Every structure is written in structure tokens, then in C-alpha cells.
């Protein structure tokens, strides 16, 4: 028994690189051999789906991209799934970005969904306004007058030449607001400077780490529904019936979580054994 306890304590201070190897394998293997576990949507993802379902053809949705390559795996699947849902319902999509990288993410998502899948027309069905530095000051500017912040769109066309920009002057003219956000500026700023002051229905998709910071807004009704990280994206993909990159990552996600939980439990067992032995001597 004593030898077994020695082994546990020694394993407690395992070299970090062994743990790195284990996690690498645990994530790679399910990518090659998918398990296909079924996905069960939580009600916060369902609320986002219902909010978009309520929109009618021709409604105007403002989608804002506030994430970059470093959080793309969590949020890009959500943006793609949301654009699919919006274009499916022929909603007019207006895109702004509060992060410089957001502009590139938006271009990629539009190329994949608007151009290749739904063959939508730029300037009539969707427009990419692009990035402007200034964080919440940009949102405040958009709430009062879009044409002060954006005189040209991301491709250099004048706003007045874009048909779908006619009689769209401020955030209040939109029927729906969605922020795919990975930090500051992001969801919190959109609630504070756009959703609350104008009352436009707002949902959001955030990185898993930011979900908790935003939950009180959901409970008090300032935000309608939230997609949390890659699981949130997978749930939304299953709701619109078009599985994408979010779903394919779920098996690796599940197995990795099991392993991390095992690490925590095992790490604490060796911690207890060590502490009880220290008390004895």
C-alpha cells in the first residue's frame, strides 16, 4: 500500500510535457475517429434560434464581428450558422466590426455563406461596413448616426450608392442585433450603448470564457439568448439542421473535458496523500 501511495505522490509532480502530450493526443484522435455523440440544445441557444425565427423576410439585422483568429474556432461556427439562418429567411444583413481582425472573419464567413451557398447579392441582401477603431465610441456613433462613422463600406463604395442602406441611419432602424464577441469591445458594450438605449432585440454569441460575464444581462432580459463557445455553436448548427465545424469538434471536446476532470481529481488525490503524510512525519 505504501509503495502505491509513493507512486501517486510521485505522479502528482509529473513533468508538464507528459500532460501536454496526453492532451494533444486526446484532442487529435477524435478528429480522426469521430464518435458522433448526439447534441442536445440548451434553452439559451434555443432562445437565440426563436429570436431569429421571429424575423420576417426583408427585416434588417445588424451583425457585429468582434473576434479574431485567436478565438475563431469558438465563434466562427456561430457566425456562419447565424448567417445561414438569416439568409435562409431572406433577412437583410448589415455587418460592422469592432475588432480589426473581425473584418477578415466577416469576409471569410460571407464568402462561404452569402456567395458560395446562398448566392446573395452584395449591396442588396448584405453589406460589409467594416472596422472602425474607437470601441464603444463607435457604437455610440452608430446609435446616433451611422453615416458619421461609416461614409464608405469596407470595399470603398459610398453608403448612398448602396441600395439597402437607403433610410437606414441609426441602430434603432434595425429589427435585430447580434454581437459575436470575444472580449472588449464586444457584447457588454453593445448592451450598454445600443440594446439598452434603443430597445432593439439583441442576442449574442461569445467565447465560453465570457459567457458568465454576460449571463446577468440574459436573466434580466437585456439580452435574448446566448450561444456559449463551440458547444453553443454546435447546438445552433443542430437547431438549423446544418452541421458544420462546430459539430465536428464536439467529440474531441467531450473526451478532452473528461480527461481534464480526471486530471483535477487525480491531482487532488495526490495532494491529499502528500498532505496527510506531511502531517504524520
Amino acid at each position, binding site marked *: 500500500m505504501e509503495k502505491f501511495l509513493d507512486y501517486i505522490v510521485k505522479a502528482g509532480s509529473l513533468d*508538464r510535457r507528459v500532460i501536454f502530450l496526453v492532451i494533444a493526443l486526446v484532442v487529435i484522435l477524435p478528429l480522426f475517429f469521430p464518435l458522433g455523440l448526439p447534441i442536445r440544445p440548451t434553452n439559451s441557444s434555443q432562445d437565440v434560434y426563436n429570436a431569429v425565427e421571429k424575423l420576417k423576410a426583408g427585416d434588417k439585422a445588424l451583425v457585429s464581428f468582434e473576434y479574431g483568429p*485567436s478565438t475563431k474556432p469558438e465563434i466562427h461556427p456561430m457566425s456562419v450558422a447565424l448567417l445561414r439562418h438569416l439568409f435562409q429567411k431572406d433577412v437583410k444583413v448589415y455587418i460592422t466590426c469592432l475588432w480589426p481582425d473581425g473584418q477578415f472573419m466577416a469576409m471569410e464567413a460571407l464568402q462561404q455563406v452569402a456567395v458560395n451557398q446562398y448566392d446573395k447579392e452584395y449591396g442588396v441582401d448584405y453589406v460589409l461596413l467594416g472596422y472602425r477603431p474607437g470601441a464603444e465610441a463607435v457604437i455610440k456613433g452608430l446609435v446616433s448616426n451611422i453615416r458619421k462613422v461609416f461614409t464608405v463600406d469596407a470595399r470603398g463604395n459610398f453608403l448612398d450608392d448602396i441600395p439597402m442602406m437607403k433610410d437606414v441611419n441609426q441602430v434603432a432602424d434595425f429589427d435585430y442585433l447580434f454581437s459575436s464577441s470575444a*472580449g*472588449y469591445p464586444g457584447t457588454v458594450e453593445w448592451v450598454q450603448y445600443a440594446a*439598452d*438605449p434603443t*430597445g432593439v432585440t439583441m442576442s449574442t454569441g461569445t467565447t465560453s*470564457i*465570457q459567457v*458568465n*460575464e454576460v449571463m446577468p444581462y440574459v436573466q434580466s432580459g*437585456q439580452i435574448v439568448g446566448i450561444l456559449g463557445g463551440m458547444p453553443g455553436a454546435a447546438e445552433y448548427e443542430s437547431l438549423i439542421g446544418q452541421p458544420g465545424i462546430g459539430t465536428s469538434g464536439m467529440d474531441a471536446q467531450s473526451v478532452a473535458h473528461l480527461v481534464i476532470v480526471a486530471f483535477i481529481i487525480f491531482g487532488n488525490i495526490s495532494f491529499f496523500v502528500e498532505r496527510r503524510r506531511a502531517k504524520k512525519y
Partner: protein
Amino acid sequence: MKDKQFWSVAGTIFVLFMIYWFLGHPHFVVERAVMFWAILVVGGVLIYSTRMAQRGEKIFLRSIPGLKAVEEAVGRSTEMGKPVLYVPGIMDMDQVETVAGVVVLGHVAKMTARYETSLNVPVSRAIVMKAARESCRESYLIEGRPDLFHDDMVHYLTDDQFAYAAGVNGIMLREEPAACLYMGKFYAESLLLAETGNSIGAIQIAGTASPSQIPFFVTACDYTLIGEEFFAASAYLSQEPELIGGVKGQDYLKMIAITMMVLGAVINLFHDLGWISWDILGYLTVQ
């Protein structure tokens, strides 16, 4: 009713506004009236308590364990002859947490001047570098050791979040500081820093109000100033009447918020049961 001057000013503002209101309040956004009064009341409470502190009234503030640890940590670094690493967060001076981080830095700089310990402050924003450098220079001056201060004690790495985290990790691995202090606004790079600090066996004290980073600091650091404790820390360390008055003021405001919540629930219950007609939730407009 000690502060005559405060109440007279408050009274005149109130009267003036009433006159303006009854004159038809031109150009006033009426839907936001509740917020207007909220700002005046909350601002008034804060100003009143700050003036109370400035008058030198004795204000009791409870002890915060994390702060005593800051002194121990600098002491430990002095004994081991190793530098103190101070990370003021990755955001700019327009973030209040960064400003609180610079205030706490000023105090830590006083200690490193007194104990002659070397201090290393890598920053990720040019404006923070300027503010942090001047704050350290002032602290070394106050402690009478301007000779110990050199400009590159506070140095800029990069604006980008993860290049900065990698840069700070490089410094930790090369200089092996005995104490790592993370005071400011952090995002996902907090674990990178805390994990590397853990691996070199440094005492780690963190202070941040970013709710998503606190769990990591709580689990991987020896002490964590959670949210408001971090703001109160800058009041503690600076012993400035305004800041202590501010903490006191916020305590009053918390009491007001709690009473409003409980009262709100009770009144809302009466409204739902039909005993009273006044719908409080409709009144508390969020615009």
C-alpha cells in the same frame, strides 16, 4: 448634516433643476429622467463621502488579506535578492482597472525603493508605459532614492495580447522573479502568466476586476483581490482621503442597491397580488 457647504450646493442644484423642470424642461430627454436622478444621487453620495474623508473623519475599512501579502512578497524578494515582476494588465489608461493597477504600482515602487529591490514592469500600451514610468519616478523620489530609478524599469513590449504574454513569460524564465504581481485588466493570457509564475515558484498576488479571469487567479495564485477588493486596495495603499472616501461611498451605494432590490421584490409582490397598483419595475426604466 456636518458638511454645510455640500448640502447648500446640493440644495441649489435641486432648486435650479426644479425651476428648469417647471419651465417646461426644453431639450431634456424625459425618458432618461430616472437615470438623471440616479447619477445626481449616486454622484452626491460619492462626493459627500469623499469630502467626509478629506475632512479627516475617522473611516473604518476592514482588512484585506491579499494586501498584507503584497508587503510579504516584496520582503521575500529582497531576502532572495531577486526582482519583483509587476504586470499592470494589458489594457490602456482609459480602463479604470489599469489606473488602479498603476496606483498600486506606485505603492509597490515605494517598497522596492525602500528595500532596494529591483523592479521590472513590462507594459503592453504606450500610454500605460508613460503613466507607470512617471508614477514609479515619483515613488522613488518620495522615498529619497531617485538614483535607483532608471527609465527602462518600465518598458514596452507590444500592443498585441499574446505577444505580450509570451514576452512576459520570457522575462519570468530569464530573470526568475521571487514575486509576481498581476494588477490590472486581464484577458485569456492571465493563465499563461500565472502558470509560468507557478512553475518558477514565485509568490503570486493578483488583482483584477475581469470576472472571467478571477477563477484562474483564485486557483493558481496565493492571493487574489477579487473585483472590488482590487479597487479598494488602491484606496488602502494610497491612504488618500479621496480614494478611501470613494470606497466608503460605494459601501453606502451597495446598501442603497440592496434595499432597492429587496423593496423592489416586496413591492412587486404586492403589485402582482393586486394589493397596490404602482408597478415599480415599469418605473425603473433602463434606457
